[in-house]
């Protein structure tokens, strides 16, 4: 049974998706989706334990051995992202029932949850897959399902936003496909470990270089790396609140996972000069993402858009850490993936709960809600502090490691340091703006006294885990270190 966990991780949500479609009562559909998501989470936890104790797991689907069959590969790096994705889905679903029924027509909820489970299956499939084309397939499953989720809400501004996301996302996936095609032409195989062994012996490096370019740009489009981030702010802002929470926590991270996995497995070890190209390409983009994200967040007036721009900046931090190609840099990147998923998920769940009583998405309609619902507001505050990187929260550790990685660089230390620190200050500014609006104005008249109790409990638990992982970060730290070791170990 345990050896089948990699395929079960994907199959369980995928098989439940059509079943959920048949269930009419919204509550029941939600409960079934939640149960499936929780099962996927349990499988992910199991896989984390197995990979930390026993090492990477290989699973040939249908018994067809690689490189002829499609192989699933779960190692420390995949396990971390499996945990992030399934955890995000489970906790958002747990906390999100009231928010979901307030935004989506009750008769359509079973379709919505069907799409949710497909998106979950797709994202999980990306993380377990060891075959390059298989990643493309799962990537498109996840993307198509998420387009459905985003367009499901009442806000009509979501529609042009999701159309733009569809166009840009498909172009990105197609670029990735072109890259994989070029690599297939030169090596004759699609299995990633196999490509890694075959690539060094390829004489003509030009197609490989072109492939690397296509794959990087394609995945950058999916991961919303500046300047290919244009789809993100509007999409996150106008999607239903719980969809934003789910996608903000994991969709761009999975694209980053694929980018780093493909790059380090295939290219770092075999393309001559690729390391420098990687750094020269990504570091300036990461810096621009960090600064642009923080700056635009400071200026915007829609509550969700502020934090959507914040995500653009945080993706920048993750890419910066990865682009430094050092052990502390990669560890910082992966730790920040975990911490950001936790913090951003908490914030968007919190905003979703408060939005049950806010009249519009404008920041001003949240005025004083913090006084009416102090628990939810304090949870958002703690998650926000983790985002900024205040000591005592999880976000501080990833920021510390990132700055440490910057110090270890031979040159450009001062510029990079200035960018990271100044953007942290800007994060304090936009967070303070949001919190000031929540706490200081008088509570709005006529608002209800309580938010749904279960949801608030989950929200507070998530916020407390940001503190917990800030003071006792053994688990994410170990996973992140393992992931960094795995990536740096290729080609040795």
């Amino acid at each position: 049974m345990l050896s089948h966990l990699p395929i079960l991780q994907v199959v369980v949500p995928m098989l439940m998706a059509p079943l959920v479609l048949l269930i009419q009562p919204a509550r029941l559909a939600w409960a079934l989706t939640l149960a499936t998501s929780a099962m996927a989470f349990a499988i992910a936890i199991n896989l984390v334990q197995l990979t930390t104790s026993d090492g990477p797991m290989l699973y040939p689907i249908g018994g067809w051995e690689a490189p002829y069959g499609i192989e699933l590969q779960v190692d420390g790096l995949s396990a971390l992202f499996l945990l992030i994705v399934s955890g995000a889905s489970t906790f958002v679903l747990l906390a999100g029932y009231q928010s979901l029924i307030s935004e989506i027509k009750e008769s359509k909820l079973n379709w919505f949850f069907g799409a949710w489970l497909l998106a979950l299956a797709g994202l999980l499939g990306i993380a377990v897959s060891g075959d390059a084309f298989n990643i493309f397939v799962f990537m498109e499953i996840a993307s198509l399902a998420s387009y459905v989720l985003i367009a499901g809400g009442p806000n009509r501004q979501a529609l042009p936003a999701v159309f733009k996301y569809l166009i840009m996302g498909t172009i990105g996936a197609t670029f990735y496909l072109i890259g994989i095609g070029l690599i297939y032409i030169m090596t004759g195989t699609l299995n990633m470990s196999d490509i890694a062994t075959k690539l060094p012996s390829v004489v003509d490096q030009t197609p490989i270089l072109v492939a690397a370019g296509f794959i990087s740009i394609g995945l950058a489009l999916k991961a919303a790396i500046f300047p290919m981030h244009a789809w993100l702010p509007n999409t996150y802002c106008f999607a239903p609140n719980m969809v934003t929470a789910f996608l903000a926590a994991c969709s761009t991270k999975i694209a980053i996972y694929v980018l780093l996995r493909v790059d380090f497995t295939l290219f770092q070890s075999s393309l001559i000069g690729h390391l420098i190209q990687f750094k020269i390409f990504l570091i300036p983009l990461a810096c621009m993402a960090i600064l642009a994200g923080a700056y635009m967040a400071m200026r915007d007036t829609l509550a969700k858009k502020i934090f959507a721009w914040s995500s653009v900046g945080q993706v920048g931090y993750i890419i910066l850490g990865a682009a430094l190609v050092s052990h502390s840099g990669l560890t910082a990147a992966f730790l920040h993936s975990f911490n950001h998923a936790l913090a951003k998920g908490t914030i968007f769940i919190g905003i979703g709960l408060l939005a049950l009583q806010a009249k519009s998405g404008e920041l001003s309609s949240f005025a004083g809600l913090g006084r009416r619902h102090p628990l939810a507001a304090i949870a958002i505050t703690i998650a926000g502090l983790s985002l900024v990187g205040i000591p005592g929260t999880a976000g501080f550790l990833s920021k510390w490691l990132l700055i440490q990685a910057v110090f270890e660089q031979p040159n450009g230390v001062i510029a990079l340091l200035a960018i990271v620190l100044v953007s942290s200050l800007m994060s304090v500014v936009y967070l303070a703006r949001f919190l000031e609006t929540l706490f200081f104005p008088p509570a709005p008249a006529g608002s209800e006294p309580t938010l749904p109790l279960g949801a608030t409990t989950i929200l507070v638990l998530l916020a407390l885990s940001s503190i917990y992982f800030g003071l006792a970060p053994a688990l994410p730290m170990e996973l992140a270190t393992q992931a960094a070791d795995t990536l740096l170990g290729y080609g040795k």
Partner: protein
Amino acid sequence: MIVLDLFHYWTFIALLMMGFYTVIVKNNLVKRLLGLSLFQSAVFLLFIGIAKVEGGTTPIFTKLVDSQVFSNPLPQVLILTAIVVGISTSALGLAIILRIKEAYGTIEEDEIQSREEEAQ
């Protein structure tokens, strides 16, 4: 000759760029979606182009004769999957365009933007 030998690669690039141009430049959402389809078909061409082996035949075993040269079946299989993905994307895109038409009354990008700004 370089052009004739690599004919299908040139076609691939031409289709890719035509599709990409349409997606970026056109205002009408349906035209953009069509551009996307064109863009994706270019990639199909790339893959199928490499599947053909000179002197190769359809990759189906009729008798156990292993001295025959077969065309590569793998890219063809990959493209079947990619075509399915492309169709789903187009279908979803058209559904979204339908809803945009219901919500905004137009499917021209600039008009959608101006109607949204007016509403605010």
